[in-house]
């Protein structure tokens, strides 16, 4: 990659774009999909699986495509461009990464294979009420019960938790630390209440009451670091989705300015508006650059490097997403407020992505804490 994509990556992008344009190129189709449960298209999800898009970062022996995170990022960008409601980042990025990093060989083959084939939807039950983007569990407890384990606690919001076939659940271990478990969606003691999410998807409150759970990987291990890296992975994939969204939100805005007439002339006659579009472009370019860089780090870096990159990209993309999302609606005027017109969904999804894994101020706080530890930030070595 190195700021240029390989031919294979370009082909992947073309294939994904063709598929997604067919599915959602007409925004009305996207709206119809989000209006009905489960808030995404299982058909599109299957097509993405057929394309190989759901197993890109996983090794072939685990049932994946043996490509990498850069390839997954390409798909995330394309999903963003049509603001597709499929739960890609959480299923592939978050759940997939957790299983890939913590699972036994057998679990990896089974779960990652099922993710890659689109056979099973895997959700992550990690967030809890009152907690903010922490890599640890709070009030959800895991208890060892003879040979087996059970989980007790409430998780929310769980993206697509209402229909997930399988959950990766974080829970406090008896000895302390946060463990990871697999819980079947239809296991007894799993109760789920699903809500429409602001972005058109669905989130659930999942209550585990003595629910039967299988440790992910070896039992009783503290997986806080694994969760942290998986959250960082999701942050970087989410940034890629956001870049796709912002690109199209800006294009929609410039098209609107060129076509919409007011006071007898098209809006691009008003310099105050075109200059603001130029500022949106500046935000987009900077966000794109740092996202491409962070994705390279995700592909090749160690956990500390990925963590640093995730913070930096989260800050920049959070700022850019708010700027571009807010201005896209404002420059559209009234029409931008309507659900029938696409641009609002782009802004909404930017807002949701910003808050799923940690917003800009959250990232800035972490960066500020460490700012005294080095002279300057140098991306070349």
């Amino acid at each position, binding site marked *: 990659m190195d700021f240029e994509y390989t031919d294979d990556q370009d082909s992947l992008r073309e294939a994904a774009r063709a598929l997604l344009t067919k599915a959602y190129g007409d925004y009305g189709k996207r709206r119809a999909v989000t209006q009905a449960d489960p808030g995404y298209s299982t058909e599109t999800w299957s097509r993405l699986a057929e394309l190989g898009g759901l197993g890109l970062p996983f090794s072939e022996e685990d049932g994946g495509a043996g490509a990498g995170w850069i390839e997954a990022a390409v798909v995330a960008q394309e999903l963003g461009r049509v603001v597709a409601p499929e739960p890609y980042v959480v299923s592939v990025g978050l759940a997939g990464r957790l299983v890939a990093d913590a699972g036994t060989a057998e679990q990896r083959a089974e779960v990652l294979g099922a993710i890659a084939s689109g056979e099973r939807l895997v959700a992550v039950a990690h967030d809890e009420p009152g907690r903010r983007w922490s890599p640890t569990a709070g009030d959800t407890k895991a208890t060892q019960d003879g040979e087996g384990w059970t989980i007790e606690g409430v998780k929310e*919001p769980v993206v697509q938790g209402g229909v997930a076939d399988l959950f990766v659940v974080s829970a406090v271990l008896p000895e302390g630390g946060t463990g990871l478990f697999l819980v079947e969606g239809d296991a007894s003691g799993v109760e789920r209440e699903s809500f429409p999410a602001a972005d058109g998807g669905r989130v659930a409150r999942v209550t585990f009451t003595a629910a039967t759970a299988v440790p992910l990987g070896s039992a009783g291990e503290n997986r806080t670091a694994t969760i942290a890296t998986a959250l960082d992975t999701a942050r970087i994939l989410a940034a890629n989705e956001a870049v796709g969204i912002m690109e199209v939100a800006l294009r929609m805005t410039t098209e609107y300015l060129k076509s919409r007439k007011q006071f007898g002339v098209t809006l691009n006659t008003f310099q105050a508006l075109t200059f603001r579009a130029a500022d949106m472009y500046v935000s987009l370019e900077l966000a794109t650059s740092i996202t491409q860089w962070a994705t390279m780090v995700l592909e090749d870096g160690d956990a500390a490097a990925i963590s640093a990159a995730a913070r930096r990209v989260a800050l920049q993309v959070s700022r850019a997403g708010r700027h571009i999302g807010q201005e896209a609606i*404002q420059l559209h005027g009234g029409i931008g407020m309507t*659900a029938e017109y696409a641009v609002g969904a782009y802004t909404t999804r930017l807002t949701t992505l910003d808050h799923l894994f940690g917003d800009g101020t959250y990232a800035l*706080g972490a960066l500020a804490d460490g700012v005294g530890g080095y002279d300057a930030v140098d991306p070349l070595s």
Partner: protein
Amino acid sequence: MMDGYVRGARPPAPPPEGRATTLMQLQLSDEDREFRATMREFFTTKVPQEIRDKVAEGRELSKEDIVASQKALNDAGYAVPHWPVQYGGQDWTQLQRHIWNEEMQAASVPPPLAFNTSMIGPVLAQFGSDELKERFLAPTASLDIWWSQGFSEPDAGSDLASLRTRAVKDGDDWVVNGQKTWTTLGQYGDWIFTLVRTDPDVKKQAGISMLLIDMTLPGVEVRPIELIDGGHEVNEVWFTDVRVPGDMLVGEVNQGWTIAKFLLGNERVGVAPVGSTKRNLARAKRLAQESGLLSDPLYAARVAELENELLALELTALRVVANSAEGAPHPASSVLKLKGTVLQQAVSELLVDVAGPQSVGGDGWGARSTPTYLNLRKASIYGGSNEVQRQIIAKTILGL
């Protein structure tokens, strides 16, 4: 003006509710203090608590809630204080109107329906025939008639003068055809005040009239528009050969542009949503404090900066009040709308950040924060967009 104030050297008394600020406060005169106490007492005891709770928590109000609240206000004479006294208004000072508005917002009381009390009411009082006044003013104040606004059209947003809905005289009636849009809460509307083109042959502004239309008439159709927050508060209103009696014309034929300018320029006191934004900021702060987030200096600084800007805005509103006694709005009025909406939006954004992951969806306050944030994007678009406000400031105030 502003003789209501008496500055005093004694330290300010702690406010009746909540913890004291560290701020020195401008001391009201005894009379205005008493007035404020009366308002506070009224708003916090006579308007149903469950309605105020909904407002405080950002939940949606039903039509019944809004009507009940306005009736409570109107029964006490507090729904239309800025109307002429003979039609139910109050002989209050500008400062008292400001206090009324701020206390109402602070108590989470839904403000009286603007279409009734700020828009068509004053228009009828000024331009309406005696028959129209007699027929409409009382039920407009009491919200027995719910008014909708029919100004905007699909191809004439800020460029109102381009409107195309036409009214053609046929006998004594006007026959109306066309389409209005962005009609807020039009689904509840009994009547709609419209701008219609009555003379297509003259310069754009010159051929416009204002017509009152009964929304139950044949040919009137209200179609909801879904907004990006999932709500349906705005509507399209279609008119197909609607026959409107001739006496439903306000003022003269082709006087509509003058009336519209009067209507749009008529909001002076309370144009900036200072009180409700303060309430929402205090709420966001309380929630951040409960979750421990306020101990993060960056969030604390965001709160402090917003509080300071709101203070400056509120003081500007007081300055405008103090300097517009003679009826001519202070030039800074346009600042209130512009900065007021910016801060309103910034506070709603802060609340989403306070909610964090819970803002994504669910059934709690956190999940409601995102739709509210999205809904409030309208604040800088509707009612004279912030671009229009900048234009007004540049042209009218700065002479550019």
